[in-house]
C-alpha cells in the first residue's frame, strides 16, 4: 500500500465568482506533520473547508486523492468516516445538542458505515474519560451543548478532544493555536503529539511560529494568494518569523 495519505493536485476553487485557491499542490504521507503558514486571507481556511467538504466553494479544477478515494466526490460525513478530521478555526456553538451525545452518534454512524460493531455505553464512557483527560477538557463541558458558552480556549480543547475520540488518519488543525494562552497551547500540543503515529498525518495551519515549537513539523509550506509559494523544513518557519512573508513574494519562482 502507498504511503500517501492525501495528494492534492492543481486545486482551484471559487466563491461567488472569485477565485481563492489558484492551483494548489500538496502531498502528505503517513507519519508526517505538515505546517501551512501564510498571511491572513491567503486561503488557509478555504483549503481546510474544501477538504472537509463545505459546499460554499465551487471546485473549478484539480484532484484530491485521500487514501485511494476521490475525496471531492465524498459527502462531508463520508470524509469523516474514512478518516479525515478538521479542527475548525471558529468552532460553532450548537445550542441544545449535547457534546458527548452527538459524538456517540458520530462514532456509531461511522462504525455502521465501516461495518464495525456499535460502541457500548461502557466503552464509550471510558473513552470519553481517557481522551478528555488527554486534552484537559473540563468534565462539565463534556455534557453541555456543543461549544455553547465555551471560552475560546475551551472550544479549541473541545476540537482536539473530538479529534482524539474520532481517531482520524488525517487531522487538519486550522489555527488551533489562536486564542490560546501558553498553558493551553502546551496542553493542546501535547494532545496532538500523543496522538501522533506512523500511520497518521497532521496538517497544522497557523500563522504564528510559536505553535511549531510544540508541534514540530516535518515540512513547512507557505500559502500565499491561493498557492503554495515555498516549501521547506522547520527552519522555514523560523525564517518567516524573523523576516515576515514579504521577502518571499519578491522571489516567487514564475
Amino acid at each position: 500500500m502507498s504511503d500517501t495519505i492525501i495528494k492534492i493536485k492543481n486545486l482551484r476553487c471559487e466563491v461567488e465568482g472569485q477565485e481563492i485557491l489558484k492551483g494548489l499542490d500538496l502531498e502528505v504521507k503517513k507519519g508526517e506533520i505538515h505546517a501551512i503558514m501564510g498571511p491572513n486571507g491567503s486561503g488557509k481556511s478555504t483549503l481546510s473547508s474544501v477538504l472537509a467538504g463545505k459546499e460554499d466553494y465551487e471546485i473549478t479544477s484539480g484532484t484530491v486523492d485521500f487514501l485511494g478515494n476521490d475525496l471531492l466526490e465524498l459527502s462531508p460525513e463520508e470524509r469523516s468516516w474514512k478518516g479525515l478530521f478538521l479542527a475548525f478555526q471558529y468552532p460553532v456553538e450548537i445550542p441544545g445538542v449535547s457534546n458527548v451525545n452527538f459524538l456517540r452518534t458520530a462514532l456509531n454512524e461511522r462504525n455502521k458505515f465501516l461495518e464495525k460493531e456499535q460502541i457500548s455505553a461502557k466503552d464509550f464512557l471510558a473513552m470519553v474519560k481517557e481522551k478528555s483527560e488527554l486534552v484537559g477538557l473540563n468534565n462539565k463541558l463534556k455534557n453541555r451543548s456543543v461549544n455553547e458558552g465555551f471560552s475560546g480556549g475551551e472550544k479549541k480543547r473541545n476540537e482536539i478532544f473530538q479529534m482524539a475520540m474520532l481517531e482520524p488518519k488525517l487531522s487538519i488543525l486550522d489555527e488551533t493555536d489562536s486564542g490560546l494562552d501558553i498553558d493551553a497551547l502546551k496542553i493542546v500540543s501535547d494532545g496532538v503529539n500523543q496522538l501522533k503515529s506512523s500511520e497518521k498525518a497532521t496538517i497544522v495551519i497557523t500563522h504564528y511560529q510559536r505553535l511549531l515549537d510544540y508541534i514540530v513539523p516535518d515540512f513547512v509550506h507557505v500559502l500565499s494568494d491561493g498557492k503554495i509559494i515555498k516549501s521547506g523544513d522547520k527552519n522555514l518557519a523560523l525564517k518567516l518569523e524573523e523576516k515576515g512573508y514579504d521577502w518571499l513574494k519578491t522571489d516567487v519562482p514564475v
Partner: protein
Amino acid sequence: MSVEIEFDMEKEVLKSFENLTQSSIFPSNQEKELEKLKTIGFPNRNSENWKYTKLSKLYKKKFTDPKSADLKVFPISKLPNISASTIVLENGIINKHLTCVDQTDGLEISFFSSNSSEIESKINHTTSKYEDAFTCLNSYLLNEGIYIKVKKNTKITQPIYIVNVVTNSGVAVNSRLNLELEKFSELTVLQSFIGPNSSSSFVNHVTEAHLSENASLHINKHQDYKDVINLVSEYIHQDSNSSFTINTFSYSGELIRNGLNVDVDGQNCHTELNGVFTVNNNDYIDNHTLVNHIQPNCQSHENYKGIIKDKGVGVFNGKVIVHKDAQKIQAYQNNNNILLSDYSKIFAKPELEIYADDVKCSHGSTTGQLDEEALFYLKSRGVSSNTAKKLLLEGFIGEIADKISHQNFKEYIIDKLI
C-alpha cells in the same frame, strides 16, 4: 384576494352539521345555544383572529353523527405507556373497555352523559364572555364530556390520561373536559388527540378549568390526527396563588387551531404556556393564546417553537393583556420558528397590550432556517446529514420537550415532532 362568501353564513355552515343535531347530550339547551351561535356568527376570513385559517375547508364538508359510526378497537398499545388513570373517548363516546380510572379519595370523575342534569349548570362559566362560535357549536352539538373535580387539599400524584381518539372518517366530534380544582389541590392531565384513520373528520374540543386559590394544574397535550380539522378551545380561570402550566405539542392534522385563553384573576399566580408545532405537507397549525392579567403580582411565561416543513403553514399569535390595576406583572413571551422548505410559511405575531405602568414584559419572535454552519460541523464529525438535522431540531425543541416529566410520553412526542 377576497371572494367573500355571500350567503347566509350561519345557515350554510350549520348545514355541515345538520345530520348531527340529534346527538347533543343537552337537548334542552340546544335551542338557546343555536340562538347564541346565530348572534355571534361563524368567523370568516374577515375576522381578524381567523384571517389565516382556511375555514372554508371546514365549511365545505359534511359530517356524520359519530354515534352511527362503528366503534373500532383502537390499538391503545400504540400510545405511550404511562401509568395513569386512562379515559378513552372514541369518536366522542366513552370506550368503556379502554377506560380505567383509579378511585382515589378527593378525586371525582364523571361523564356528562351519565350525569347530565347536574353537570349542565357547571359548564360554560368561563366561556361566555369570549363569544366564540365554535365553543357555542360545541355546546350545541356536545357528544360527551368529562368532568373532573379535585377536592380541597388533594394532590393527585398519578396523571390522568385522556385520549380523544377518532377511528372513523367523516365524523364530527364535539367533546368537553371540565376541570375543577379546589383550594390547594394538584392535578396533572395528559391529553392525546389521536386518530390514525380519521380522515375528513372534525374534532371540536373545549376544555374549561377553574383553579381555586393555591391550586396547581399541569396539562401536557399532543395532537396527532390524520387529515382532521381539530379545533381546541381552552378557557382557564386562575384564582390567587394558583399555578397553571400547559405544554402543547401539535404535529399532524389537516388544520389544527388551538385557542388558549387564560384569565389570571388573582395575585401571585404562575402561568406557563409552552408549545411545539411541526407542520407537514399542506397542513395548517395555528396557536392563538391570550393571557389576561387582571390582578397584580403575577408571572406568565410563554414559549412556542414552530418547525414548518413542505407546504405547511404555521401561525403563532400570542397576546398578553395587562389590565390597568395589574401592577408588578412579569410577562415573558418567546416564539422561534424554523422553516425547512422554500414553500413553508409562518405568520407570527406576539402582542402585548399594557395598561399598567409598573410591569416587566418582553416578547420576541424569530424565524430562520436550520443553521448551515452547525449542520456542516456535525457532518464533518461523521454525523450523517439526516441525523444532523434531527439533532439540530431536537436541540431546537429541547427546552420545551424537557418540561415533560413523563419520560415515555416525552420520547413518544419528540420522535413525532422531528
